[in-house]
């Protein structure tokens, strides 16, 4: 659907009731902002997130809709619908559409705050643990309990090695 005052596609849809008559209006984000329509709407974070995500993806939707996180299995469209990531890796997988979104929300694109002293040091080990846990889940699913027991021990061992104190 096109915006009724320009050629862009409409993302803001309003229903006005004047003297008992329903009237529908459709605008693109820019025109809606110019008309100050958005200010009157109640602040709904999920809706805003979705509209912002939608706006930034625009024409690339086809390509993005096929994007799936290999780690948690979330599809880009699912992320878009829920406004929530499925796992920490999604920030890499969906980086391209996420960055403009983050800039819109925060007006910043780089973390300048606290850096946890251990997280970076243990990044490699964590990747390994992630892999092992995935294997463990697969083993349980195919009921290979001996493998599962072995994997569980391995995970325990690595987790303990991960703890300095």
């Amino acid at each position, binding site marked *: 659907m096109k915006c009724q005052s320009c050629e862009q596609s409409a993302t803001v849809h309003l229903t006005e009731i004047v003297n008992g008559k329903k009237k529908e209006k459709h605008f693109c984000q820019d025109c809606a902002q110019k008309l100050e329509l958005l200010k009157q709407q*109640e602040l709904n*974070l999920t809706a805003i*997130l979705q509209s912002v995500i939608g706006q930034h993806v625009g024409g690339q939707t086809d390509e993005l809709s096929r994007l799936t996180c290999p*780690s*948690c*299995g*979330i599809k880009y469209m699912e992320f878009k619908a*829920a*406004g*929530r*990531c*499925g*796992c*920490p890796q999604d*920030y890499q997988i969906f980086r391209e559409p*996420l960055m403009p*979104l*983050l800039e819109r*929300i*925060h*007006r*910043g*694109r*780089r*973390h*300048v*705050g*606290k*850096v*946890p*002293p*251990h*997280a*970076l040091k*243990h*990044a490699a*080990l*964590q*990747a390994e*643990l*992630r892999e092992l*846990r995935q294997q463990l889940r697969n083993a349980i699913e195919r009921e290979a309990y001996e493998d599962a027991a072995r994997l569980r021990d391995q995970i325990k061992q690595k*987790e303990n090695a*991960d*703890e*300095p*104190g």
Partner: protein
Amino acid sequence: MNLDSLTEQSGEWLRASGPEADIVISCRIRLARNLSSFPFTNRASTHQKAEIEQYLKGRLEKIDFEPRLEYVNLAPLSALDRQLLVERQLISRELANSEGPRGVAFAGSEIISVMVNEEDHVRMQVIRSGFTLDEAWQDADRLDDKLEEKVPYAFNEELGYLTACPTNVGTGMRASVMLHLPALVLTKQIEKVFRALQKINLAVRGLYGEGSRASGDFYQISNQVTLGKSETTIINEIRDVVPNIINYERQARQALTRENHAQVLDRVRRAFGVLKNAAMMTSEETMDLLSSVRLGVNLGLIDDIDIFKVNELFIHTQPAHLQKLLGRQLDSEERNTERARFLRNRLREMDSLN
């Protein structure tokens, strides 16, 4: 931990002990953290949530941190017990109403609580009485360091702490200040304050975060931005703006007592009178009347009532607290009767001490 005993005490944040405690009820720092090798809670299976809970519970109980934290498993608790923890601000409404393995670790003083399997795997918070943002941040920072010794967080250099919702990524920090602003509400200046705060990207919410209308004239101001600013910058921005609001509220209070003394006195005394005499009382009306009484105490219009006792009544008259104090389930009409009885007794007790 025996949750029933919680109703006999009050969280530290109600003490009215910190600076500017007549207006600033409490300061809160919340940090969102996630384990790097698990999916976020919304994407985790029940089995994974149980693993996450087990992993965090053990480490939270073992960390080298004072005060000691005790873990409460929320899944087997009754809805009433979970509601009790919500009213005490130890857990969020979302965590109370969600499903699956989840819990909260907290210490007896109730200054610190750590939620497990909320929207993020870890949501730690520090709540302190009065205008004490820096102290709250120091506590949260210290607890965060201690937990991070044991728990590998999801973090990357570019985007900071990775969170389920992109609105929290970066510092993962929400810093908030709870203010009691009855005079700005009475003089209809509160909207102006809202607009000014929104312009500088700060959010305003009512107590318990429900909708826009703040019951009891309690307003919570917090940061929206978490990426591109350091924790101290975010805290400084809030700390710099709050004194202005405190001043507006004080000016409004002075103007009220100067220009409308009789009306204010009347309002305060009527509120006190109704609270001491009514036979039925809703939660909403209680909040409104207590707000007037609290204003009256702060303006010296009601003698010798401890502001801490008034703060406490706001929490103890909430539905779950009331039912816990009485030791049985009540429907809403019974609650209104019992709430009125509870208020009559408490306020008369306070009066007779004078």
